[in-house]
């Protein structure tokens, strides 16, 4: 057992991947709480598509992978924010319009300009490819994420719960919304190497979905979701190493299995609770309507 855990650590690339996975797992776990409660689960999927578009255009222009990814997701985040503010258009429509357009531009660029991009690694994640730059990006995003969530925690919660009244209470809701979009974009960019473009969406939904089933309070949900993000990342990375499958799918499948466990477990607990309540309500213990008895 200990070999399974220790052998991968003998490889420097796995150590880097594990460190990046811990940071990304914690960030995506915490972020997923706000994503799920805002009912914006589609945003991870959309921004990941924007990453692909940005990377394609960036590589075609001969710049670093991250430059294209950051530019595309930041642009997508700002445009989603602007489009959502137009009355009658909700976030889902804004995400669909903006991110698929950037994705389409990227795909078109790839067709026009021959480039050497490892598409599989980009789509599904690759722990072999985690380098110092990826770690630095994850660390920088993690630090910014932590500071912003701590400093604007109450405003983020209020805006997520009731933006209309939060505005009345003096919170600059527009700024908080933009901040949230940019934070999401930053986490998505930092996650590309480990999770892959196609699977980021699950990482910013699954931890909170599991935590929602198991907790009642906001703080507990945030703590559990963050822990689950870390757990799924670590377990998924080890699986990726031992089974020789890209890291994105192993992380997501680990999260999905935990979700199934939580879903079935809470359903069974609910059924047992109902059965217990029915058993407790045996004949003779229920209040009988006296008027009904008289009329009979």
């Amino acid at each position, binding site marked *: 057992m200990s070999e399974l855990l220790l052998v991968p650590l003998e490889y420097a690339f796995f150590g880097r991947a594990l460190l990046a996975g811990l940071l990304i797992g914690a960030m995506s776990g915490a972020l997923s709480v706000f994503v799920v*409660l805002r009912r914006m689960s589609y945003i991870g999927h959309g921004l990941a598509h924007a990453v692909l578009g940005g990377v394609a255009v960036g590589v075609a222009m001969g710049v670093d992978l991250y430059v294209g990814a950051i530019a595309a997701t930041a642009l997508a985040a700002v445009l989603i924010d602007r489009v959502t503010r137009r*009355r009658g258009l909700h976030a889902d429509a804004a995400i669909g319009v903006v991110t698929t357009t950037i994705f389409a531009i990227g795909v078109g660029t790839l067709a026009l300009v021959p480039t050497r991009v490892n598409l599989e690694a980009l789509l599904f994640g690759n722990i072999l490819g985690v380098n110092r730059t990826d770690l630095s990006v994850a660390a920088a995003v993690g630090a910014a994420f932590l500071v912003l969530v*701590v*400093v*604007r*925690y*109450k*405003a983020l*919660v*209020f805006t*997520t*719960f*009731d933006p*209309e*009244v*939060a*505005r*009345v*209470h*003096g*919170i600059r809701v527009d700024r908080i919304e933009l901040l949230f979009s940019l934070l999401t974009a930053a986490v998505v960019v930092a996650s590309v190497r480990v999770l892959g473009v196609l699977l980021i969406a699950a990482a910013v939904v699954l931890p909170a979905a599991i935590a*929602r089933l198991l*907790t*009642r*309070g*906001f703080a*507990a*949900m945030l703590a559990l979701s963050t822990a689950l993000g870390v757990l799924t990342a670590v377990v998924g990375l080890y699986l990726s190493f031992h089974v020789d499958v890209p890291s994105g799918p192993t992380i997501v499948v680990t999260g999905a299995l935990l979700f199934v466990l939580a879903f079935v477990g809470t359903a069974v607990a609910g059924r047992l609770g109902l059965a217990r309540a029915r058993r407790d309500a045996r004949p003779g213990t229920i209040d009988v309507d006296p008027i009904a008895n008289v009329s009979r």
Partner: protein
Amino acid sequence: MDTPELTAPALALRGLAAGYGGARILHGLDLQVDRGELVGLVGPSGSGKTTVLRAILARADRHAGTVEVFGRAVERRVPARVGYVPQLGSVDLDFPLTVLQVVLLGESERGRSRPWFTRAERRRALEVLDELGLAELSSRSLRALSGGQLQRTFLARALVRDARLLLLDEPTSGVDLATRRDVLATVSALHQRGLTVVLTTHDLNMVAAHLPRTVCLNGRITADGPPAQVLTPQVLQATYGAPMRVIHDRGRVVVVDDAPLGPPAPALVFPERRRAS
């Protein structure tokens, strides 16, 4: 020396024309609400009741006129000391917050960069909950509350920031009679304490029985004054575009909608009946 903030009316709308984008819903409203007044805005759906509240909160597009709250012009930001309770339908009751946590959110901007609430803030929130009879429910989730308890929770969230002007959007909409009484008793108690309250409602008889001032609205103000003077068949016809009977019984006004029903809209007639006829 008097400063405008100390002597000005709680609310003053002057020549207010407002709506959403180019669509105008309010046409030249003039309305003054003095400090300590309790005012009910009534009118048919689409008459602009909620738009009046949204204009005060700088959330409707103003085409002309001014809005002043306690003597200060409302431009892009909502003035301090305004509390707002939206319609219950707009709230996610499954959001994982307790009653106390919802109320504490009302104090979010006091220690804005602190991620936690201080003991003093918690004590203040619990005091407000106690005043509204919710102290024992402070650890409940929103889903576990009745309609009246929910309204009181959101009132507590407004009060915890020392709101002096309360704007309530249909606080008695979709609730049973007991809950309606519960909500009205709370609003009345707050009014007695000196708060200025402006609420919107569809319930004409509630307005007639419990509110000292009624403003009838249909894009414009069709009448403004005590219910006994305002709720007349003529005013109601002008406001709702439908005939209504008004009964005066021992000083109380009762509005009765017993006019014969007109023909249904053609699209609502069942196809088989249309064929049969």
